[in-house]
Every structure is written in structure tokens, then in C-alpha cells.
């Protein structure tokens, strides 16, 4: 069974968002997504200050077999990327909600988070 933490919001495309202080949000991929993608061997992250729109591709996560686009679950401006993933992309597999986060955004429109799925809805979609 996939782990779906109760304190996060989820996108249909298997990304999670954690709303943090001062209008920022942290983004990663779900436990379900990392399990489906299998061994992650490379993560291509957005540039700092990149302006992203919800639902648009923002990063690429690569397993041995395939490259998969990651869609930003929320709009905003990139203010931090996870530096640990360059040398240890497998953190996305081992700790998808913690050390394996992808990037942080200054959120453009806080109301957008309300349109994302609740943990219960996301989990129901996995069944």
C-alpha cells in the first residue's frame, strides 16, 4: 500500500504539495509514483526563478527504463531546488515526502491549492 500523508495536497498526476510559511510551497512526487517509476537514476529540476504554471511540465524524473515528465501541481516562481538529488536521485524512492522533495515555489495564487485533491480523494483514486 502506498503512503499518503494527511497533511499534503495531491495532483491527479501524482505530485504532492506542502503549503509552507510565507506563501511558499514544497513539491514532490508521491510514494505511489516513485514505486511505479522504479529506481530513479536522474532528476532534472527547473532553473531557479523559473515561472511555472499548474499542470505544465516542470521537471523530468528518469528511471533505468524511461524518462517521465513531472507536472507542477501549483503555479508560482521557483525559489529553491533540492540540491541533494544531483548526487543521490534515489532519495525520491527512499523518502518521497521528505529528503526526496523536488523544488519550492513562491505560490502565485494560494486559492489554487484548494482545487487539488485531498489525501482521501487521492488515495481513493489509487484503488
Amino acid at each position, binding site marked *: 500500500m502506498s503512503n499518503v500523508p494527511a497533511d499534503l495536497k495531491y495532483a491527479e498526476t501524482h505530485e504532492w504539495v506542502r503549503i509552507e510559511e510565507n506563501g511558499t510551497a514544497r513539491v514532490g512526487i508521491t510514494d505511489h509514483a516513485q514505486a511505479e517509476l522504479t529506481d530513479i537514476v*536522474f532528476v*532534472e529540476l527547473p532553473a531557479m526563478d523559473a515561472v511555472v504554471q499548474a499542470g505544465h511540465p516542470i521537471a523530468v524524473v*528518469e*528511471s*533505468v*527504463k524511461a524518462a517521465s515528465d513531472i507536472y507542477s501541481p501549483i503555479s508560482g516562481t521557483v525559489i529553491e531546488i533540492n540540491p541533494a538529488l544531483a548526487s543521490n536521485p534515489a532519495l525520491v524512492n527512499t523518502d518521497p515526502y521528505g529528503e526526496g522533495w523536488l523544488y519550492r515555489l513562491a505560490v502565485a495564487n494560494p486559492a489554487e491549492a484548494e482545487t487539488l485533491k485531498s489525501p482521501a480523494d487521492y488515495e481513493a483514486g489509487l484503488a
Partner: protein
Amino acid sequence: MGFGGWEMPIQYSGIIDEHQAVRNAVGVFDISHMGQFIASGSGAKDWLNYLLANNVERLDVGECQYTFLLNQNGGVIDDLIVYRTGEEKFLLVVNAALIEKDFEWMQAHLREGVHFENRSDHFAGLAVQGPLARKVFEAFFGGKYSIPSHNEIMEIKVDGESFFVARTGYTGEDGFEMFFPAVHAARVWNDILEKGAQHGIKPCGLGARDTLRLEMCYPLNGSDLSPERTPLEAGLSIFVDLQKAEFIGKDALVKQRTEGVKHRLVPFKMKDKSPPPRAHYAIQKNGGKIAEITSGSLSPSLNIGIGMAYIPTEFARINEEIEVDIRGKLFAATIEKKPLHKKQ
């Protein structure tokens, strides 16, 4: 995933984990999807020698060779292993996706004195590969048989049914492959896993099979080989005998050898950490596209991107620098010597 009509997992415990098991201990692959043809009769040897590029005459009973089925242009229809299992009997193991096409092609050239059968549905297959494969063989057969020598095959009769066991593989490690009646597949698979447990055996899928073969620069038909490419372009001329009197594709190959090949299939390795190179990515040199990757992956053994491509002969030299276009960014790579993975 569906593969040539068989349901095959890409992975069990994970591609990298399975890959390392084969490099360091032992793994078992279900290769039941592969095709098996049997050619027998007084005309079988000469007939095969006309259809296949390597020289069947060189095989004693119990030996095998890697060879090609070529079209008239010298292009590769399929690459396969031919085993001589008797004075007048041969087992051919062909690629899953080509079973029908190969069989039709061979059937169309059938001669008097040859009995030719497609036994692909009858046989299941397992490949046990890795430095500890030999121990698994001993545990499985309980000392009743000794493992065949490298590139040799033995036929064991169990209740009148043939079990073929060959010291061959597609990983670059020691190992053996077994072909036996499909009705016994589940029992043999479970038994191999049970007997291999003490040696750390792991079930392995198509994903690890691909990374293991690519590190050895073994070509995959459909990716690295095609009807538009010859074995000379693929750098596999040692498996073609141009001294043979006659075989399909010979004239085209002789001509190509005289004129020289324009492209050669060569392996490359990324210089630094990069996204894994993959099939169909462009290869550039001096700002222009010179080739497309035929196979590419992260190498679990080297922990860097590797691949193969048909590079124009002028650049197909060891240590030549090339660039791989990955999503619009160029990453440096160098052409390497085969194999990319060398035994410690």
C-alpha cells in the same frame, strides 16, 4: 508487459538490484518468449549453411555458434544461436518478435532432405546467469550431470522428453540456458529459485536483461540490428564466414567489404553524470547530427550513461568525442572499446 505474445515482467525486485545480482551472484530469467526451431535430416547442415551467415560446418555435435539470418542485401532479418544437437539435428533459438517471420523465410527456402519444425510453443526457457550459476546447476541437477563447457549444449531425456541445457547467455556472465517442455515451466522455475536460494538467486526481468547485454555491447535485434544494416556495419563480421561457397546475403556483403562500410555500430560512454542516453536521441559532432542512438541506458555497473549507435566510419574510432542531444542540451560522450563492462 506483452512481449511476443508472452506476459513478461520488466522487473521483479528492481532493475538495478537484479542487474547487480547477475554481476555478483546469480539471477534467473524467464526466456520462454524466445523461439525454437528444429532442423533435421541428411540435408539440414547444408541447408542451414545456405541460410545462415556463420559456418555450421565448424560445429561438432554439442557445440553452438552465434549467427545471422540475412536478406539478399546482407541486412539482418534475425540474429540467433544455432546448436548442433546431433549429427543431422540442429536447434535454432531465435528472437520472440521474429518467430513467424524467420520461420516463413526459412520455410520458403526449404529443401529436400530437411525436416523443419517451429517448436516455439512447445518449449519454455530459463537462463541462469552469474558467477554462481554453476553452483545452481549442481544444486538443481543434484550431481547427476556435469555442466556443459562454454558454448556447448547437452540433451537430457526426462520421461522421453528433451531438456536442452546449454552453457550460453546474454549477460556477459557465466551461466546456462535450459529449454524444456512448457508444461513443466512453473515447476522448473520454482525449483531453480528454491535450489538457488542458498546462492542468493534473484528472479530477473527484461529490464535487467537489457542493461546487462548493453554493458557487454551485445546487439538487440529491432534496436541495434535491422534489415537495413549488415553484420559488417554492426561490427560482427567474425560471425560471418565470407569463405563459404554460398549463402543468402553473401554477394552483398562481399561488395560492401570491398567498398568499405559507411557506418559502424560502436559503443559510447557519457563523460560525466547526465540524464541517461536513450534510443533515438541524436548524436552530434561539430554542430551537426551524425547518428541516432540505437540502444541507451544508465549502466548500473559503471553508474554512467552508455549506448550504441551507427556512427559514420570517419568518426567511429575509439576515444572519439561526440555529443548526445538530450532534450535540447548537449552532453559529452566518447566512443569506447567493446565491451563497456570489463570483468574485475
